[in-house]
């Protein structure tokens, strides 16, 4: 989604603004995350950034990136992690829970209703055909996201990264090995190689 889209009505000043916005309350956290979540078709991150940084000014863009980076390298659904880390930063554990339930509560209700509909009507021919079409397109979206993420590695000619990428792709996608065993080998290996390469680059 375009980061420079016109709907970000308030132009974000680059200079540190002297007016610190009041930290959000519990209800505010719940409502803000529920809104981001319900706006987020095919990913909530863009809306989380828009809500937290542009709209509410609860964090600067840098603070947001740093928090997101942390949540991205930890396992688990990234935006869910982000909601808890963000909420608890302002209001402790209750804040984390408020953001978490705001993010997950409303869409879980919607998805559960859809799941029930699918369980009852999933075998109807028209619906089957429509779903088949939608899943083809959805897979295409996922593939395009993969290529978008690969571009920086290709531009940097990050050979090590691309080899790690290809190895994981083969192990999981083609050989269908279990995820835990692949990661238990790949993570330490990748960290070790990255560490050695950085030392060499620094030396």
């Amino acid at each position, binding site marked *: 989604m375009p980061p420079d889209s016109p709907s970000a009505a308030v132009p974000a000043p680059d200079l540190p603004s002297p007016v610190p916005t009041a930290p959000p309350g519990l209800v505010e956290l719940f409502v803000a995350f529920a809104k981001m979540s319900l706006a987020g078709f095919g990913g909530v991150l863009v809306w989380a950034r828009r809500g937290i940084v542009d709209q509410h000014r609860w964090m600067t863009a840098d603070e947001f990136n740093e928090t997101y980076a942390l949540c991205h390298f930890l396992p688990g659904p990234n935006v869910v992690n982000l909601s808890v880390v963000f909420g*608890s930063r302002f209001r402790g554990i209750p804040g984390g829970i408020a953001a978490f339930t705001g993010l997950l509560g409303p869409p879980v209700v919607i998805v559960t209703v859809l799941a029930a509909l699918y369980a009852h009507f999933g075998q109807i021919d028209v619906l089957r055909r429509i779903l088949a079409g939608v*899943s083809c397109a959805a897979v295409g979206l996922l593939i*395009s996201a993969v290529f978008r993420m690969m571009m920086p590695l290709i531009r940097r000619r990050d050979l090590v990264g691309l080899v790690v990428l290809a190895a994981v792709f083969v192990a999981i996608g083609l050989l269908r090995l279990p995820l835990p065993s692949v990661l238990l080998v790949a993570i330490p290996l990748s960290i070790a190689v990255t560490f050695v390469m950085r030392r060499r680059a620094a030396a």
Partner: protein
Amino acid sequence: MNPDANPILTLVWTFGLMSLFAVGGANAAIPEMHRIAVDVRHWMTDTQFADVFAISQMSPGPNVLIVTLIGYYVAGVAGALAATLAMCVPTAVLAYYVSRLLAHSGRSRWPAIVQAALVPLSIGLMGASGLILALSADRTWAAVMVTAASAVLAFATRLNPLWLLLAGGCLGFAGVI
């Protein structure tokens, strides 16, 4: 494990464990979800898995909600809730403690190195997700073409993804796929 065991407990155990290995988020864990739901436990067929992915992409909310759909499929509303919480709570608790730890430990270069090492890994996992889902969803050449067209359009333009999903649905409705 005992196949007669309580399905809710099986869901909690399966997704709770999986969440700890979901490096790069929910979409990177799709191969593992597919392996367990289709190949190991036979909860659903390949096609149903592709359907569930499509529904999760059409609904608002984080991508992780595909586990809500799988949970519902296995054990109804209770299964949906159990799978969602099992996938989200353990890592949320972990994220809470790690973020507090890092806030107190000051600057270190380790987070940056770990992150740089994990990025290609998680892209590789998502690539595997794309392959496995394509094999489930694309049963005809027409379907392959739709997937390829959607990938190229999403890569080259800033079209809202919902339009592509809608177009896919219309083509399916028209009986093209």
